[in-house]
């Protein structure tokens, strides 16, 4: 493969742990969940944007995921 999509390092926080993912700029919401699921101990989880304080918006769509990757935001993962 000679073409290379730009990837960004995105962190997600789950309980007391921090994880890092390399995500291509066109990663979908479903693909993102697929990368998070094997790293945590539950299949029922939700994603939020992790702001510096308070609660961030819940992540549910591909366009939100693309924004997060572009802006290099952090993700908080919670059990449902």
């Amino acid at each position, binding site marked *: 493969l000679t073409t290379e999509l730009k*990837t960004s*390092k995105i*962190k997600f926080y789950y309980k007391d*742990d*921090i*994880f*890092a*993912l*390399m995500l291509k700029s066109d990663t979908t919401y479903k693909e993102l969940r697929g*990368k998070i699921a*094997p*790293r945590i101990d539950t299949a029922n989880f939700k994603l939020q944007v992790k702001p510096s304080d308070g609660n961030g918006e819940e992540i549910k769509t591909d366009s939100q995921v693309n924004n997060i990757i572009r802006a290099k935001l952090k993700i908080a993962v919670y059990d449902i």
Partner: protein
Amino acid sequence: FKNSIPESSILLRISYNNNTTSTSISEIFTLLVEKTWNFDDLIMAINSKIANTHNNTVLPISKIKYQDEDGDFIILGSDEDWNVAKDMLAENNEKLLNIRLY
């Protein structure tokens, strides 16, 4: 010192809390690993190093974290996590990775 690390290798600086004794002792050791190793090779090398230095009296470690460029300690638990760590080192032109064992 940094230049003495071969291009094909990464030097792990590992800090390890040995909780098997009544007083918890923190140790630091280094381990030179190959970039081509996969995650299982890495775990095996770390555990065999610990076993060798403790006469096989300690349990294998279960959790590894590495320090990223922000100073955060990130879970290193799979081949993909190991690739993320290697990408980070390459981007920062680094060959030394700080590791914590649990």
